[in-house]
């Protein structure tokens, strides 16, 4: 079973002369434990695809399944999108986008509380995650007391808090230097392989391509799988 399976996605913006087709019959399958890259120039449709996969945008046509359950059919989201995002999808962005008035621990706890998990169990899980990502000593720090790399790791911890089967990352290394970029990508690989999480990463960063199991390229709304496809690691 695929963690995510998109079939025949179409998305068009505008009308008449301003019409732009961002997705043209896009199909994509990512298994649990697989780290997939979405490469492509600006305006190629990468972000549109990512937001569609994250149920933040409704496609005009096509189907989308999460863990075998159909959530988009004939261009309509058929389930409670907010609930699916809450329970099944973790998001990581170019910027960490941490809540500035919450500590590292509280930022992770927030994701758990949104899912109704509170108290000691939530605390233990959040601490465990931060430990796992090497931030055990920084739990009480506010975001502006953390480095860019540390902030991004807290954001990853937040995305993983509910142990979602799918993590979508939009250029997560764009604001980091090459050393920290490599760290973050290695972290994604580790998470994917150890926890069986499917990770889809939009990136421009060719320095980190060796960290991906599959590389998909987009151009003018069309998705192609790159010729060199490393074998996915077992979930």
């Amino acid at each position, binding site marked *: 079973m695929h963690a995510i399976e998109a079939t025949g996605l179409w998305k068009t913006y505008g009308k008449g002369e301003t019409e732009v087709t961002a997705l043209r019959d896009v199909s994509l399958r990512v298994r649990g434990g697989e780290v997939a890259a979405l490469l492509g120039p600006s305006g190629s449709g990468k*972000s549109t695809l*990512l*937001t569609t996969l*994250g149920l*933040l*945008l409704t496609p005009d046509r096509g189907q989308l399944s999460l863990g075998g359950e159909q959530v988009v059919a004939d261009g309509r989201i058929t389930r409670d999108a*907010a*609930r*699916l*995002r*809450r*329970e099944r999808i973790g*998001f990581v*962005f*170019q*910027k960490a*986008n941490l*809540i*500035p*008035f*919450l500590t590292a621990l*509280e930022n992770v*706890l*927030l*994701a758990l*509380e*949104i*899912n109704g998990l509170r108290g000691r169990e939530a605390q233990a899980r959040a601490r465990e995650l931060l430990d796992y990502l090497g931030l055990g000593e920084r739990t009480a720090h*506010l975001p502006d007391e953390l480095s860019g790399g540390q902030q991004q790791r807290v954001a990853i911890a937040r995305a993983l808090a509910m142990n979602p089967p799918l993590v979508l990352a*939009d250029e997560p290394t764009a604001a980091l230097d090459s050393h920290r970029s490599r760290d973050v990508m290695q972290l994604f690989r580790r998470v994917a392989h150890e926890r069986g999480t499917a990770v889809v990463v939009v990136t421009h960063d060719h320095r980190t391509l060796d960290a991906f199991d599959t590389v998909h390229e987009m151009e003018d709304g069309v998705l192609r799988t790159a010729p060199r496809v490393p074998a996915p690691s077992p979930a």
Partner: protein
Amino acid sequence: MNLAMKDVRHQWPRFVATGVGLGLLFAIVLAMGGIYRGMVEEAVVLVEKLGADLWVVQRDTRGPFAERSYVPEVLATRARAVPGVRWARAFSTLTLQPVHRGRVLRLTLVGLSWPEDRGASLPLVSGRVLGTAHRELMVDRTLGLALGEALHLGDDTYRIVGLTQGLVSSGGDALAFVSQSDLERIQNHLAPEARRLARVAGAPPMDPGVSAVLVGVAPGASVEEVRARLARWGDVTVHTTGEQKSFLLDGVVDKARRQIGLFRALLALVSGIVVSLVIFNMTVAKTREIALLKLMGARLGLVVGMILQQALLLSLLAYGVALGVSRFAFPHFPRKVVVGPEELLGVFALSVAIALLASLAAIRRALRIPPTTILAG
């Protein structure tokens, strides 16, 4: 985890400064109500302290607090002969602005019917009531004069023998009490040259009369019956003390009440706009956080709750500041400010209502923030 409180704690200096500013606005709203209530209390205090049941005034007038009223002083003697009348006293007031030790004082002089009335019903805080019919004076503390101090009025010098508290005229001037005969002397005071010219012209001495005659009804007698008996006289009109108070409030305080009411409404509106803007701006400043919460699938209640809690907290903080100002600053205001439980409860309800209404625009804005805002970089 309470996001509203966490956010407030993170930016507490700005939040507190906003709350204090808003609190001062609320304090003015509170003060406006208190000033009105103070005006009412001050306006009727004299009428209440005089303890009369009936006011006999010039025919077809509403009495000395509403318009000019003149009745002869001898009317008090006539009234005493009416069955059911326990006592009858002349009543006159005179507003003066004497210069004392280089300072201009403003006071309203009230004549007491010596020897029946020496001021025993007045709330003395120090000194004594009038001991003689001449050149003794009781004044209210707000005038700022000390016991034993001498004050020159008309041709004579008066010694302050008693100090009262909380006795001011409807205009807020301190009340001072002298015997009726002294009041007439002060009222008839003329410069020596004017006196000489009047004598040369053969003008008769002025009879100032009195403004009203106050009547106390004997125990067991009916106020209405006594009033009816007095009203049969063709030269006077008789009002009850309740009517006197209404004339006073309708005439003197009513316009002020309306003016203050309008001002309060305007202030409440301004407070509402300020709270709305503050809450709205606080929400706009959290656009990314709200978008993130939505993207993470947070229920709308979490976002709405955060905005509402902060609005309520801001209003409650402002209310607390207003309460503090009312406790510590209002007693130093030049005129009495009466802040009662109704006033406090009213402004509290207003602050909560303002918070809730002010949140609406911010909540509307928050609900419209698309979760994809967070992807915009």
